[in-house]
């Protein structure tokens, strides 16, 4: 009897596994925008870099998460947002986060905006600095141009005297 049960449980797992796996697969912003009606009000996983500002407004707040295709607004409880160290901007890569939450094509709570209401936010990777040293070709061009400019200014100053 238990062997049969085990077998049924095993079959069940085989059938269910792809479904579970699919639910855990992150959706891209392009898919979300393209099939917004399909994903509307469904629980989804969305991964991307936190960009711009972490905007905490009282007990909740907003971050904008960019997965390389588009940035999407994520509404979350303030305690989730406080765990985010760094948002991406010039010279900085923001924290890479995984959002588990409800997707809204047109959120009735937030003026009809397309957004995600986070149930959980997990940091996958910390952000880092991306400032690089100034490339040599830019330095050379700058020096060359400066020399040319000084010569022109000098010549026109000279010719004005005559």
């Amino acid at each position, binding site marked *: 009897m238990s062997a049969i049960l085990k077998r049924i449980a095993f079959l069940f797992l085989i059938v269910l596994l792809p479904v579970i796996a699919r639910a855990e697969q992150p959706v891209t912003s392009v898919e979300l*925008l*393209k099939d*917004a*009606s399909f994903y509307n009000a469904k629980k989804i996983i969305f991964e991307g870099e936190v*960009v*711009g*500002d*972490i*905007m*905490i*407004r009282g007990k909740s*707040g*907003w971050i*904008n998460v*960019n997965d390389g295709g*588009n*940035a*999407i*607004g994520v*509404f979350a409880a303030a305690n989730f947002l406080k765990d985010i160290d760094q948002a*991406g*901007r*010039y*010279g*900085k*890569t923001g924290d890479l986060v995984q959002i588990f939450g409800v997707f809204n*094509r*047109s959120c*009735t709570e*937030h*003026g*009809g*905006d*397309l*957004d995600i209401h986070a149930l959980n936010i997990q940091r996958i990777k910390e952000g880092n600095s*991306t400032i*690089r040293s*100034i*490339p040599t070709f*830019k*330095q050379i*061009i*700058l020096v060359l*141009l*400066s020399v*040319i*400019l000084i010569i*022109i*200014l000098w*010549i*026109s100053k000279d*010719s004005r005297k005559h």
Partner: protein
Amino acid sequence: MLLRPSFQDIRNIGYYLGKIIVGLALTMLIPILVGFLWHEPEPVIDFFIAAEVSLVVGLLLMKFCYSQKDLSWMQGMIVVALSWLVAMVLGAIPLYLSGHWHSFLDACFEAMSGLATTGLVLVQDLDHLSHSHNLWRHLIMFIGGQGIVIVALSFFVKGFSGAFKMYVGEARDEKILPNVIHTSRFIWLVSFTYLALGTISLGITGIALGMPWQESFFHGACNFMAAFDTGGFTPQSQNILYYHSLSYEVVTMVLMILGAINFKMHYQAWIGNRKEVFRDIEMLGFFTTVIITFFIVGAGLVQNSTYQQGIILFRKGFYQLISGHTGTGFQTVYPSQFIAEWPHLSLVGIIIAMALGGAVCSTTGAIKMLRIGIIYKALMEDIKKIILPEKAILAQRFHHIKTLFLEQPQVRAAFLITILYLALYALGTLAGMWFGYPFLNSLFESTSAAANVGLSCGITEVNMPAALKITYIFQMWAGRLEFMSVFTLFGFFLALLKGK
């Protein structure tokens, strides 16, 4: 007979062009300053390079074309048309050096889009762009909105001899005060007062939304320039959706409307003549067309049940409509949502609003309200001629600052420019369809480019055909300058080739 332009013509044009380029180079000091403030060494170098290239070109032109003669009308028009193209190329240099644009053509597209206060973007990874480059994107909307020539020449004390001719060439033919210098000073006064007020109100709103104060005021200044100059760039890739805030939408909407109003009307309001606001043909036209086009947009959204609640329908529909009608291009929907979720009827409503535009002598593009009003009055006059007994016919009047009689040359000019705009919209639509985009998408994007709006339904992106990018650049340029100086430039080149 076509006369070949003289050497003196070319010298004069070159000299003034040189002056304008030097003036433009000086405006690049502002992003350099911002780069120092935010500790962005590489962007500072980008702007030093661009400023030096501009100075070298400008000074060489001034030296080799040195002239003390006054500009003729033809020369003034050509200087204007050329200076917009040159400003596009020079303004694109720092953008391209940032590495956020895939090609120099893309950077030129963005620069023209900014200068012409359009707002279509090809920037990549905007969310990591430096403050200095971002400020430059917005500053060129301010410069282009005021008029490149006026901005550049204000650096020179004695640079105003041919100013009026160039002022007209930049589609700013209405003098508010009797003198063009006073007019441009008044425009500066209005713009700077609103700049201060707008930046402060957006900055405070930003702080209330949880942004750090430096970023709030930076975003405030950028978004003010984009709204008041009806440009439509924003510092972040999500456009106005970045802020998740009703108050931010309200403030930007007020600024967009202020930007679409004739500077003359600002003047009347400033000197206390508030009644004008409710009598002027342009203001009445604007109220009327906003109501009509919103009715169309709303009807479509209701039929399609795109939004579940009336208040949301109003917030989304009205914001995109005002953004389109004023020629700004701020969006609170993603470009792809326009096509995926909005019905054709609503899109047509937006297209009509974009095609009409705001007031003359403002920073909006498109046909503009004064022309629409004049054509409407002319139509009424003709209908009355048919209906009323012959003796009862009165000359048609309209109110624009003062009461004016409708005259045939005005009607003719209004019709001509309207037809040229319609042709320009058609040109881009055909180009879009040529490259395989659907009709409505092509019409939407083309009207947005030629009317200097900047709303996008998704055609404008980095992989679009280069020829279509060039078409849109041409549309933005010709649409912003209202054709005359562009035609003069073509005539000039023709005369160079075929003249005697």
